[in-house]
């Protein structure tokens, strides 16, 4: 299974964190530090895999964002790279040419999309169409913009 997924910028700013097993906050902070320093220190055109403790770390850079996925030892590295890619495609499809800012300002959406795709550290649905359909379906359930916009901002 996958253990965690982190998205961070080239400056090491964390943009999204998803933990698939319960971990204490302290431990999380330590892992985030380790991952950002390890991955950011890699030379370009190195391989995308690292061993870290008993896990494999798969990372890939998309524009200014690093996607860093930790998988258990027996899992398949190449497929993990494609998990990252499929997630990027899903974000792209939803936001239309996704960029780092979309994820910052709509972090909750980034989580919802991820939840449709993965669950409990395993793949739930690989079909782009199926995931998009459920995201759209849940957007349909939302109250209209106007209703919200009429509410006070603070």
């Amino acid at each position, binding site marked *: *299974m996958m253990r965690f997924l982190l998205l961070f910028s080239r400056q090491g700013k964390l943009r999204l*964190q998803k933990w698939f097993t*319960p971990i*204490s*906050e302290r431990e999380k*902070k330590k892992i985030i530090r380790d991952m950002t320093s390890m991955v950011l220190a890699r*030379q370009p*055109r*190195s*391989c*995308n*895999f690292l*061993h870290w403790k*008993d896990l494999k770390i798969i990372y890939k850079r998309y524009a200014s964002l690093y996607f860093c996925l930790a998988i*258990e*030892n*027996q899992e*398949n*590295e*190449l*497929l993990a*790279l*494609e998990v990252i*890619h499929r997630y990027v495609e899903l974000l792209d499809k939803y*936001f*239309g040419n996704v*960029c780092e*800012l*979309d994820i*910052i*300002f*709509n*972090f*909750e959406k980034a*989580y*919802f999309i991820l*939840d449709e795709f993965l*669950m*409990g*550290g*395993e*793949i*739930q*649905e*690989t*079909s*782009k*169409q*199926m995931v998009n359909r*459920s995201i759209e*379906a*849940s*957007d349909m*359930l*939302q109250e*209209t913009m106007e209703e*919200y*916009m009429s*509410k006070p901002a*603070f």
Partner: protein
Amino acid sequence: MPAVSKGDGMRGLAVFISDIRNCKSKEAEIKRINKELANIRSKFKGDKALDGYSKKKYVCKLLFIFLLGHDIDFGHMEAVNLLSSNKYTEKQIGYLFISVLVNSNSELIRLINNAIKNDLSSRNPTFMCLALHCIANVGSREMAEAFASEIPRILVAGDTMDSVKQSAALCLLRLYKTSPDLVLMGEWTSRVVHLLNDQHMGVVTAAISLITCLSQKNPDEFKTCVSLAVSRLSRIVSSASTDLQDYTYYFVPAPWLSCKLLRLLQCYPPPEDGAVKGRLVECLETILNKAQEPPKSKKVQHSNAKNAILFEAISLIIHYDSEPNLLVRACNQLGQFLQHRETNLRYLALESMCTLASSEFSHEAVKTHIETVINALKTERDVSVRQRAADLLYAMCDRSNAKQIVAEMLSYLETADYSIREEMVLKVAILAEKYAVDYSWYVDTILNLIRIAGDYVSEEVWYRVIQIVINRDDVQGYAAKTVFEALQAPACHENMVKVGGYILGEFGNLIAGDPRSSPLVQFNLLHSKFHLCSVPTRALLLSAYIKFINLFPETKATIQEVLRCDSQIRNSDVELQQRAVEYLKLSSIASTDVLATVLEEMPPFPERESSILAKLKKKKGPGAVSVTELEDSKREGGELNGGGDRGPDTASTPSPSADLLGIRSAAPVGAAPASAGSLLVDVFSEAGTTTTLPSSSLFWLLFVCKNNGVLFENQLLQIGIKSEYRQNLGRMYLFYGNKTSVQFASFTTTPQLNVQTKPVEPLVEGGAQIQQVLNIECLTDFSDAPLLNIKFRYGGALQNLTLKLPVTINKFFQPTEMTSSDFFQRWKQLSQPQQEAQKIFKANHSMDTEVLKAKLLGLGTALLDNVDPNPENYVCAGVIQTKGQQVGCLLRLEPNAQAQMYRLTLRCSKDSVSRRLCELLAEQF
């Protein structure tokens, strides 16, 4: 502000995020956040009831602040309130907050559970999925207790929507992983297996993760999945790239599902049914063939997905380890990847070949790539790739190429990254010892190792070279000459001084004939290093000096002078001072004879048995046994020369065992991925059987109450066992007897621990017997016995059998005598329900008193007389010694001769021990 904001927007949130981004400094950010926190707090506390939208917005802001890395200590209640909102987005944000922020021991769990219960029964698929996600994310025990029985029902119910099925399968998997005891197998299990046939690919993809995990734990119950998996795989592999619509990924049909199917098959031995097996082999061949076809797309996603399946197929081929043809094809395919322009593929090929190297069918094929791998070690730019290359060299090393590989690794060490040096040093030391044909090569290698990477040479490595030199006459002169030369270097590592001091102190006489290395020259050379060394090394050198006085009387005056000087005899370090004083005195008052006796050459070290190491990983529950090197725990002290405990003076030579492996059981050694528990099962539960053994559990049970006897016997082989236990340690002698008149070739035994160790002779002559010794240490209590895998060739046929070793928890009993009152007092103290295990069962054997007594004594406990008021009953007491803790156990056995029944009661300070002992013993009477 971003241009897009689909669905609803929370303007306040966006404004806040912009504000934070505009902060020029960390301080400004913190100030802005504190202002916001104060605002939210006052809103939540205010008397005016907040509407759902505001609540959602503030909870979302809190979430954002938390994700920035700040602590959040309020707002949980508001988030829980959102769960019961009937507006979807509010509910969704509530669940997100809980998933991210609520840890499993929160007191809010009960409230959350309530909301989840409502959503699960809502029959609204979107709400159900949200609830299932939340359970999977939090995954606490309380949630498992509340929902573990409900979710299987949702999963297999006929009217459940596909999307809910997918979530339910993965949610159940999560619960099964955290609380397996709460997920009860039942009628649903067989229906889950049939989800492999489901029309909806998404459902199959999700369900197979669950099925794989369940199969690993309960292989028998789920074995029908094998044929289903094979037929599903075969359909996917043979489908055209467009058949599966959106489940085709960059022209590769269902890569995720294919890999999962191949992974599931790795939980099982090759299918027994010929048709199923044929179909599977066909699939594997097709996958290998496809690798040779031109790519359907230039995109890296295409090749990644395709190769992911290929690597998974190769893993399965390696797991089966029974199809030489496929193994060699796999090896050739990986060989191509070794030179691929994609770094990722080179990395994976190196990694995957490591496992191929340990299969006898493909070992030779792997070896043909040695030049490429050496080249990778020299030229790869990426250190992680070089590391894999080093691992592979280690794995492919055997007698034929050891010299070349060791030389390459040594030269790599000079530039190796610091992070991997220590591991490299150990590997070189292990290989040098394991494949040493002439020991001068071994000595050279280790000395080179110290010269190149002295800081990374652990004590065990240099202890070992000294042990070997002492035990082998033929290499002593050479060793003395070599260390003497090595010490000439102006700067040499302290470890070199240690080895040099020790060896010259013992064997300096062998080179003293040469005037260039006369006694005084030797002494001056050693002493020139003295002041640069640490205290332990100086202590060792002092011992070398006194040995010199014995070896070379002509150095006596010079050495006494050195010992007498203030810096020695008044040294502030007590150890050094004491040595100086004692050695000085010894050299001045003892006669030559006495001196010669006291300072006699070290006797050979007792032979080291082939060692077994690594830890048996936790397989089930809290138990784990470890079989480790005994020497590990009683390793020699800081100095070897000054005397100390020595073994018996038997002249013996050390077998080139993999002794060093035991030294650092934590260091990853080569191909054996000894770290992952579940992997152990895959790699070691060798499935390629040509003769499968009928369960030998009957034989095995006999050993619960006895330590010696025949563990296994068939027409070919007899295995006898002698074992002894003390405290938490044990030693087991295994005797493999060849009952035929024909030689057994390639005889290997692999206790389910480490594949590197090849402790037995590879040939067993007809009628002959060979012996193997296992050292065992009990780390904590355990239930599953370690397995022993034995492979050999008899005639042409490969024989493969796996036996349970008769190591059970009761072997570590220390009997405890106690009086009747003590006994009942303790009995009462252990009165918690889970501490007791009880069984009523029918007598299977004679109920004769003497037989029973013998069995109870064999168990290892003390049999207490006059304790139980009923003289017919038996009462025993003992303490189980594990490394970490002691477990007190009380036992009561009540026979009923008329009914031919027993009642057995156990009370132990640890509940898992009670249960295990009760299970074990119920089979004994």
